[in-house]
């Protein structure tokens, strides 16, 4: 849930933006981190662990634990707690190791 009226801070929620998680639109506000914005929309599972395939989400919220890794705008393994939301952002959960081999166009 987004905190509409913060009990102490006079600055309230800023500009609303729409972000996409698994191609679904969700409401977020500028200056929120991707992980926080998803949590506000009830999405806490941001990916799964590599070996035991167990749910992972936000843990430290300061870019140290890498538990919040997600694929954002085509880039894999982005620390979603350190990335601010932007209008139209496309976000996918970190479900398995990224594809390293890609097709390249001849330059």
């Amino acid at each position, binding site marked *: 849930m987004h905190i509409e009226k913060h009990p102490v801070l006079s600055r309230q929620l800023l500009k609303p933006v729409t972000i996409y998680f698994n191609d679904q639109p969700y409401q977020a506000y500028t200056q929120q981190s991707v992980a926080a914005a998803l949590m506000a929309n009830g999405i806490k599972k941001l990916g799964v*662990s590599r070996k035991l395939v167990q749910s992972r989400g936000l843990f430290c919220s300061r870019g*140290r634990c*890498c538990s919040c890794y997600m694929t954002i705008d085509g880039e894999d393994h982005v620390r979603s707690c350190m990335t601010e939301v932007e209008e139209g952002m496309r976000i996918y959960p970190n479900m398995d190791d990224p594809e390293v081999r890609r097709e390249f166009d001849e330059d």
Partner: protein
Amino acid sequence: MDKTTIICRCEEISCEEVEEVISNGGRTFDDVKRITRCGMGPCQAKICTSMVAEIIHQQTGLSPSEIPLPRMRMPLSPIKLETLGTNSTSFSAVKSVLDEVEIEEGKVR
């Protein structure tokens, strides 16, 4: 602590696996790391160091000051190869590696 509790979140190493290394003579974080992969994941031991030190302390009786810090290598946090391999002509990723190496008469010393 329950033996199955995960200690290293990134590589999913359990308390039991850490304790096994210590039973077999491991005394430092790096000992545990080399045998189990604990601390080799994306966070590079940022989260598990203090927990492993506590387990070593409890199992061996070594005081915390006798349990040295793990190796901390660069990059200090995850970085893209694209970022490291800058297009700058005055500075590049190659230079950063060469800095670690001493060149004498065009050859590595």
